[in-house]
């Protein structure tokens, strides 16, 4: 994770658009400017970034399902629960399941676990729209390769 760049997902460990599931690995950095403010002397991964992590993980699933023809943008967060503190150096597994692939929107349910214990979960709704420009699409494809989204799901 590079929190200050909003890079929440380190690696896609498993992705199956047919089964509508994704699993991602995310390592919380030992140090980040984020921790200087949240909180001084007691660094914690902000809950907002846990939600972002779930949203990005589910976002990779939506992108793969649509073979990167459209871009999901966060539209709604429901039932978000931060169940435990997450601290620097912690390893996280984030999973998401596509609940519905609607027309112009998608809904996923996702959760974050650490050492087998659920630390956060939420239901995420995305607006799914054509890429606003080729620059963003190219960047998303580059990032997809960095986090190991299988090549088979990048085009089609």
């Amino acid at each position, binding site marked *: 994770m590079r929190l200050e760049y909003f890079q929440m997902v380190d690696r896609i460990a498993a992705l199956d658009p047919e089964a509508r599931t994704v699993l991602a690995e995310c390592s919380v950095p030992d140090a980040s400017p984020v921790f200087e403010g949240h909180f001084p002397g007691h660094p914690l991964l902000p809950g907002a970034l846990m939600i972002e992590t779930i949203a990005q993980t589910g976002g990779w699933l939506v992108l793969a399902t649509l073979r990167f023809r459209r871009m999901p943008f966060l*539209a*709604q967060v429901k039932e978000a629960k931060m169940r435990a503190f997450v601290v620097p150096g912690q390893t996280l597994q984030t999973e998401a399941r596509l609940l*519905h692939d*609607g*027309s112009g*929107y998608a809904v996923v349910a996702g959760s974050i676990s650490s050492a087998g214990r659920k630390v956060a979960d939420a239901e995420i*709704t995305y*607006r799914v729209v054509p890429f606003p420009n080729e620059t963003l699409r190219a960047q998303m494809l580059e990032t997809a390769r960095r986090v190991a989204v299988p090549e088979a799901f990048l085009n089609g």
Partner: protein
Amino acid sequence: MSSTFETVAGIISETCDIPREKITPESHAINDLGIDSLDFLDVAFAIDKAFGIKMPLEQWTQEVNEGKVSTDEYFVLGNLCANIDKLVAAKAA
């Protein structure tokens, strides 16, 4: 259509916190009920789930934007329910 309307009205009432008695087949979802686009996503999700369909919202939006139909065709609830019935029938066929 009547049972479709009852289901849709119930969904709108619950999702958008609108008193059920204010929702009629003549109600326009945006102009009369004040449902915004984000709330409509919730409504669409609930309708898709309830009827096992995928409402072609993007196609409908395009038709409205191109001036082929007025918003009444898809946002007046009686018309919306008729369109849902068509989608359900098409799925069953």
